[in-house]
């Protein structure tokens, strides 16, 4: 029993959920039983945020699992929203399909460039980010464009069954599919293998080049889905999105047990990481804490993880404590 518990805690996927339980408990205590936090409203607001950040975090997380990093999600989120609204004003479903197609194409092109030229994902996707957000400026003519189909816009934000909406149901469905594919199919194992030791994976017959292109196509499509549904629900799309989604999505993936060095992480863990961030944000607002606090908390968490993951931490900590000890000894003398 105890051994099982320890194994679970040592597993980064479960750590996100343990953190989630702790945060829910802390917020419930901080609420002092006034019922502002533990109610269907907060749950709904958490899930609506999950619908925005979740797919982007999954997109970014998958690229991090294969040891790459897709900066272009920041541009894709905005571009997909613009495409979805522009096309979707006549036919909303076609709008979503068009956005997904743009996402897939952008991922395929960037992945192909990386494979063809042997380039790092950082450089290529940085260029991708600038190009994609430039494209959304061109498409919208540098203004905010409205989405006229109010029925669809309302539907996106309509809670049914208490806290489920079309938008967050779509995000949850995407995570369920990703989790099943990841755990039960060969693709999942190939993705992890590509990220943990690419040369060995290639020798073992993993189609590494295809996995890279595939993951970047998934990344584009997931981000496009989030962007399309988000601008439907806002009934507007504007080109100004850039990197607003990049920081929370990165934070969520990292809290969810994805390692920047690749080969580690699962969709379930990423979902946990996203929930931690969303509960924190909605919960703090619900109990009346100023909204800037979640920025500080997100920043703090990112700093902590960056430091804990730093390859030289142990060596430097020893050196530092020795130096400090020497100073202290010198002072005593």
């Amino acid at each position: 029993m105890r051994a099982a518990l320890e194994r679970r805690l040592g597993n980064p996927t479960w750590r996100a959920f343990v953190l989630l339980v702790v945060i829910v408990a802390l917020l419930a205590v901080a609420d002092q039983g006034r019922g502002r936090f533990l109610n269907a409203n907060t749950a709904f607001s958490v899930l609506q945020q999950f619908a925005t950040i979740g797919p982007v975090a999954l997109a970014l997380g998958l690229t991090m699992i294969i040891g790459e990093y897709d900066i272009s999600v920041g541009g894709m989120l905005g571009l997909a929203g613009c495409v979805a609204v522009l096309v979707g004003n006549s036919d909303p479903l076609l709008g979503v399909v068009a956005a997904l197609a743009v996402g897939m194409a952008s991922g395929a092109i960037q992945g192909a460039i990386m494979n063809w030229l042997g380039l790092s994902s950082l450089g290529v996707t940085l260029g991708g980010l600038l190009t994609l957000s430039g494209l959304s400026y061109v498409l919208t003519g540098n203004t905010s464009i409205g989405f006229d189909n109010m029925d669809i816009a309302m539907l996106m934000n309509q809670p049914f069954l208490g806290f489920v909406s079309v938008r967050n149901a779509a995000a949850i469905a995407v995570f369920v599919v990703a989790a099943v594919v990841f755990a039960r199919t060969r693709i999942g194992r190939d993705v992890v293998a590509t990220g943990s030791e690419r040369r060995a994976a290639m020798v073992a017959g993993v189609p590494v080049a295809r996995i890279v292109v595939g993951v970047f196509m998934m990344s584009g499509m997931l981000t496009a889905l989030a962007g399309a549904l988000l601008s439907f629900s806002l009934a507007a799309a504007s080109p100004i999105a850039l990197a607003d989604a990049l920081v929370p999505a990165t934070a969520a993936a990292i809290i969810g047990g994805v390692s920047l060095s690749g080969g580690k992480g699962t969709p379930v863990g990423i979902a946990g990481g996203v929930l931690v961030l969303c509960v924190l944000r909605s919960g703090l607002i619900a109990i009346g804490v100023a909204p800037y606090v979640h920025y500080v908390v997100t920043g703090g968490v990112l700093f902590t993880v960056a430091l804990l993951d730093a390859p030289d931490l142990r060596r430097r900590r020893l050196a530092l404590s020795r130096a400090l000890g020497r100073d202290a000894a010198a002072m005593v003398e």
Partner: protein
Amino acid sequence: MSARDLGSATAAPPSGAAPLGFRLPPRTGRLVLWSVRTMAVVVLAAFALTTPGFLTAGSLLPMLNTMSFVGCVAVGMTFITLSGNIMSFSLGATLSATTIVFVAGGLSLGVWGGLAAAFAFSMALSGAQGWLIGYFRANPIIVTMAALALITGLATYFTGGKGLYPRAGQLDFLKEGRIGPVPLPLAAFLVTVALGQFILSFTRFGRHLYMVGSNRRAAEAAGIEGWRTVSLAYVAAGLCTAISAVLMAARYSSGDMSQGAGYEYQAISAVLVGGTAIQGGEGSAVRTLFGALVISVVEGLLVLNGFNTQMQYFLIGVIVLGVIMLQTVGGRR
């Protein structure tokens, strides 16, 4: 490559184990690179000559002046890119926060006190991130993103989300100052480039920066303390950012968090278009000057030829993507 190596500037080719991808023989590659560069300059010059009203002092001086604000940040970013740490996501937020510190300092301590506070603040803020990245080899992407979130949150806490305004006329000498015919921001930018290039070419820190940036492990084996060089690179970035912050606070007569929004992306665009290698170790401040110049000439020509602003964003993105792809052709690997 594993993302742990992303920031550590190892000489391993990106996407390490994947096939190296398409490569030209070095001599052909350099030839291609130089012909593309020459062609780009010739095309730009031809457009500049045939565009009526472009080559006049009334059009060029304001264009160069506007370029200076991003330009200073770009020179700062050059140090970070050269050190092998790709880019900082927090320089824009650092710029914004520094405008607030400058205006607040100016109100309470006078202009010179404000200047000192602004420079100290920006250098310390950026330097602290550099220390974490250099000393512990923490991941530069995560650390600077964490800083972005923290700066945004704390600035909102201290200012309540509002801007700060200097006393009427207090900063006019910075806003309207000229050295001969040259407006002060442009003069400051040129001095920043000259100083940056001097540091890179003629100081020990500069030489170490190239060595650490191209191969940190080899540089450390040769007795260079890599963490000092990396930390100093971030301090230099903070210094350059402070120059831009002071000028922007004077230009818009305010200190607020919107001042530097998106500047990190504009800055890295100028760095990369100038031809500084994204993997570090190769590049210069003068190249960044040319990068900033090319971008603003392209922008200016587009405007004068009747293209709208949004076209500029898109084209700059495409240019950056193209430059990154070109690097593999002529780059020393």
